[in-house]
């Protein structure tokens, strides 16, 4: 018997080298990510350079092929976002000139603050945004709009703050437990909108929004009962949760890291990957997408639309609730009134900006977080009010979701030419 199917040793050797190179490059990327998370800004170069090298290697060093097959399509997909951002920043600059601020100084401070100086704060801001963005995205995929993610966020935060004060068991047991309990209770906060949606057809936008107001307005009641009494030294703040339950800080194993940066960002990225898997690679995810694309076709296929609505809304509530849990366990360690209100709203922006793609949400959330952190740096250092960032964010969002705008402009130009 001839053994001609067996590859020669030189081919094997080359394959082995290829695998080793890939593994090395992937490891280098991961190291870059960890270093970046742990306060080494220039590790970002590793994160960008390593995947490029990996692609370069895959194309056997053929730069033309690399350009054609990888870089050009990528540039094409980011053209419209780039146009949107540029336009929004120009509009922002015009507003600043009218109101008497120097846009160059302001933008310099915004980017320096958001991406270089205070980017640990950017990451810190991104953690809850990733969760709320995923929550919006998860419901959106089924064609539902969980506009009241803010409410579920509050429920998650309240539950964690309340239980965290009294729970006295080791952290490795308590933290997962709190994530589960907080998430489930936040999900159950969506039971009423779900039932109404399925049974009576009441629009989830109104019901979840109203419940969000209810949760926000009830939070002082909860705070008073867990330490925030008028007579206590810190009214309107609950007792701090026990220190064993705090999420580990990056600074505990990477001495350079910003002292408040907690490992919640890793959990957030993990949950984003899980959500991506659930939506794109499971049966329930397929059914969610089917209902979102065409409800009637899905029903004709034998998918129970009511069941999928329930899964989507409750799952969305769960994700939004985790946002509150991670914020209390990682950052604040207590609950105060109006605890960073606005994560629900910003979650909508983050999800829309990412085109409801769970992986893209990680990046848009970091971007949004960076704009917030940069805005505060800008306000402190060049005295431009940081709410200009809110306007820029609003305009960016509008220009990016109104995709037809570009078709419209393009058609107008073409008509004029002919």
């Amino acid at each position, binding site marked *: 018997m001839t053994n001609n199917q067996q590859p020669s040793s030189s081919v094997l050797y080359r394959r082995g080298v290829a695998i080793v190179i890939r593994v090395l490059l992937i490891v280098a990327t991961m190291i870059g990510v960890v270093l970046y998370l742990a306060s080494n800004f220039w590790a970002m170069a590793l994160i960008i350079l390593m995947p490029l090298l990996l692609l370069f290697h895959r194309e056997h060093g053929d730069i033309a092929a690399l350009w054609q097959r990888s870089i050009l399509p990528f540039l094409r997909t980011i053209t419209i976002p780039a146009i949107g951002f540029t336009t929004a920043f120009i509009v922002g600059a015009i*507003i600043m000139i009218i*109101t008497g601020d120097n846009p160059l100084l302001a933008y310099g401070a915004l980017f320096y603050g958001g991406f270089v100086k205070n980017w640990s704060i950017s990451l810190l801001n991104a953690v809850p945004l990733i969760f709320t963005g995923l929550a919006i995205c998860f419901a959106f995929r089924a064609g539902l*709009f969980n*506009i009241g993610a803010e409410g579920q966020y509050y429920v998650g935060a309240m539950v964690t703050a309340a239980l965290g004060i009294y729970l006295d068991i080791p952290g490795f047991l308590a933290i997962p437990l709190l994530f589960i309990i907080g998430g489930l209770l936040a999900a159950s906060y969506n039971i*009423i909108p779900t039932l*109404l949606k399925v049974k*009576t*057809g*009441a*629009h989830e*936008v*109104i*019901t979840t*929004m*109203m*419940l969000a*107001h*209810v949760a926000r*307005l*009830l939070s*002082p*009641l909860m705070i*008073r009962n867990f330490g925030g009494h008028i007579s206590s030294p810190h009214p309107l703040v609950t007792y701090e949760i026990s220190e064993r339950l705090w999420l580990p800080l990056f600074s505990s194993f990477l001495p350079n890291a910003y002292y408040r940066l907690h490992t919640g960002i890793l959990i957030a990225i993990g949950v984003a990957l899980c959500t991506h898997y659930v939506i794109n690679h499971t049966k329930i995810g397929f059914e969610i997408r089917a209902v979102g694309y065409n409800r009637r076709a899905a029903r004709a296929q034998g998918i129970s639309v009511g069941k999928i609505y329930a899964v989507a809304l409750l799952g969305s509530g769960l994700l939004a609730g985790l946002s509150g849990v991670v914020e209390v366990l990682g950052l604040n360690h207590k609950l105060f009134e109006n605890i960073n209100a606005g994560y629900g*709203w*910003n979650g*909508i*922006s983050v999800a*829309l900006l990412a085109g409801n793609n769970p992986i893209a949400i990680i990046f848009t959330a970091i971007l949004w977080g960076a704009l917030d952190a940069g805005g505060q740096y800008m306000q402190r250092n060049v005295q431009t*009010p940081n*709410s*200009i*960032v*809110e*306007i820029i*964010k*609003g*305009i960016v*969002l*509008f220009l990016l*979701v*109104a995709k*037809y*705008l570009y078709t*419209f402009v393009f058609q107008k130009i073409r008509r004029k030419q002919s």
Partner: protein
Amino acid sequence: MSELFDLNLVVAMVRLSTPITLAAIGAVICERSGIVNIAMEGIMIIGAFFAATIAYYTGNPWIGMLGGIVFGMLFSLIHAVATVTLHLDHVVSGAVLNILAFGMTRYLMVQFFGHPGTSEPIPTSLGAYRFAVPLLSDIPIIGPVLFNQTPIVYLSFLIIIFFWFVTRRTKVGLHIRASGEHPLALETIGVSVVRIRYISILTSGFTCGLAGAFLSIENNTTFTEGMTNGRGFIALAANISGGWTIPGAFIGSLFFGFADALQLRIQSLGFEAVPEELFIILPYVATIIAVAGLVRHSRAPKTLGADFRIEQSSD
């Protein structure tokens, strides 16, 4: 019980339901033409801000009111362009505009008043122009409730009657309803669906701007960030529970106004045993109950929330 329910409660109900009524009328017109408008919350806050700012700088609340209306309409124009011309999903556009509106008012607050939070009080509010209609205000019960009010409350009565008449008795009203039920049929008889929908959205901008002006310069003398407190969404609920009709929306709004008035009254009486938060949430809970209980008996406009492109209409 007698100190809880008296004539003043009914007066407060009418007064507190005014912004919701105005926005709900805008919602009825808008949704009847086929456009979902969840941007009303944002339009209201824009109206409230500009009404207060203009009233503060000119010293004249009437100009402030006009300013609120004009800027409300300008802001609603963005929703019109986005949903009608650019075919953007109505709910997405509305959500984005809400975010934009809250960001804008926060920024402009700092620009015009130098600090975030609450603005400086305006010199005279429209509430100072409260007047009793002669003769009519002498009627028992109805008199003090309906005919001893402030200007925008009276204006809201006129607007209710006007738009009720428009939707039921005029050609434009028929076109608005047709635009939500069967836009292609309307287009076939030579009426522009695009124009009807623009007019409808601008109408909701008008009423929501006025509602915002009511909040900041009639019911109050200052603008506070986020002072609309979900009233835009409550108005949407009033419109739905009122079965997409003007009188229904008015009654729905009165119901929410009642919940609000009751909540304030109970708070001022101060029950020690029950925390006040349980009463503050009353209007929001009422909204959920109303949407849950009443939505079954009414039918939404057929093409509500659907995009209209004449070249893609198949039926």
